[in-house]
Each structure stands twice: as structure tokens, then as C-alpha cells.
């Protein structure tokens, strides 16, 4: 069975690109527009990995990571955050909240896939 990855980003073009890339590699993808939307869509559903942006309305990426780590179903799943160069301090905040790693924007489809394959095995 295909593994499910959730992409969380308030940018529609990024969601589209991440989703297209991952589906092309055989993964199932669920899209969410911000942290709040992500939590309501996850809601206990089996998900193997979350790729989240940081700066989002309602509930940002750091907040989302913190919330997920409190839930037994998502305590240990890989969470990759998408950052920009100017968000260096956010990387540490994300790590502290429980992020597995990060990818710096801009990134290419191949880079994304390489990280996903490394993390999901």
C-alpha cells in the first residue's frame, strides 16, 4: 500500500508542486492549507510523514509540530519543515518542537524526493 504524506502550506503553488512530485513517485498525498487545517484533516488518520511550511495563518508550522508531538498517533512520524534562508532561528525552534529535519526553499523536485526517500526508507 502506498504511504501517505501530508503537505501543509498556505501557498497553493507550493502545495501543487509538492503534491505533484510526491504523487508522481507513487505516494498518496493529503493537502492542508495551514496548521489548523492539517490537524483537522489528520484527526487520527494514518499518515507516514508530514511536510510543513512554517509561516502560515491560524496555526503556524512550529505550532503544528508541537501539537502533533503531543498526539500518540503522530508522536514519532517524520516531520520535515520547509524554511527560507532568512529563517535560521526558526530551524532551531522547529527542532526543539520536534521536527525531524528541514528543506530550505527554493528546492527542486529531486531534492524533495531525495529527502522523502531517505526519511521513509
Amino acid at each position, binding site marked *: 500500500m502506498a504511504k501517505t504524506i501530508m503537505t501543509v502550506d*498556505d*501557498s*497553493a*503553488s*507550493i502545495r*501543487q*508542486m509538492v503534491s*505533484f512530485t510526491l504523487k508522481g513517485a507513487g505516494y498518496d498525498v493529503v493537502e492542508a492549507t495551514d496548521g489548523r487545517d492539517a490537524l483537522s484533516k489528520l484527526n487520527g488518520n494514518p499518515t507516514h510523514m508530514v511536510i510543513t511550511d512554517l*509561516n*502560515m*495563518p491560524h496555526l503556524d508550522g512550529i505550532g503544528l509540530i508541537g501539537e502533533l508531538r503531543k498526539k500518540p498517533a503522530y508522536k514519532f512520524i517524520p516531520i520535515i519543515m520547509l524554511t*527560507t534562508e*532568512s529563517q535560521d532561528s526558526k530551524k532551531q525552534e522547529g527542532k526543539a518542537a520536534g521536527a525531524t529535519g528541514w528543506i530550505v*526553499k*527554493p*528546492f527542486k523536485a529531486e531534492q524533495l524526493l531525495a529527502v522523502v526517500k531517505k526519511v521513509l526508507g
Partner: protein
Amino acid sequence: MMDNHTEAFREEAYELLGDLETSLLALEEAPDDMELIQRIFRDMHTIKGSGAMFGFDDIAAFTHEIETIYDKVRDGKISVSKKLINFTLQAKDQIRLMLDITPTARPHRSPYFSRPSRHSKN
């Protein structure tokens, strides 16, 4: 395949610029509204981050400068003034112009804002 993403970004950026204008005009009436300031920052941040993803490097670099100013507004280091709002409205127009003149990835196709019925087969 990247072309679709480029056009998705272009469409998104026009929407964000519209949102930005609305927020800036509202900020003029309520200069201390932190939610508006956050929203303006986020619009800029998305235009920058997603622009860089899809090859709009000039837009990303230009928008980064404005985003940096609003980061300082967020931190209370710069206060909101009429001058700042006018400057940002001008910057927004500049970004729109940069979007307008950046060639589409597939110029033989109708841009997204054309009615599909007009040149649907070209």
C-alpha cells in the same frame, strides 16, 4: 510540467497582491492592528518564498527587501505611517509589474486571465 506550477504561482501572486492592497488600506485606518501587519508580512513572505521556487528570482529578491521592513514593523522597530503604507502600495505595484512582464513559460498558450473560450485552440 514545471509550467503548470509557474502559472499556479502567477495566479496565486496576483491574488496575494490583491489581498495585500486590501490589508494595506485597512492598516491605514488601524495602524496598530497586529493581525493586519502579520497578514501583510505573510503575503510578502509567500510571494518571496514561492516566487523563488518557480524561478521568479527578481520578484523574490525585491519582495525580500519589503518583507524585511515588515519584519521590523512586527517587532515594533518601525512604526506604521502614511509614508510606509504609500511606499508599500508602490512596491506592490512594482511586484505586479514584474509579474506582468515575466514571460510565461509557454507563451503560445493563453495567459490564465484570458477567457478560455476565446483562444482555446491555438
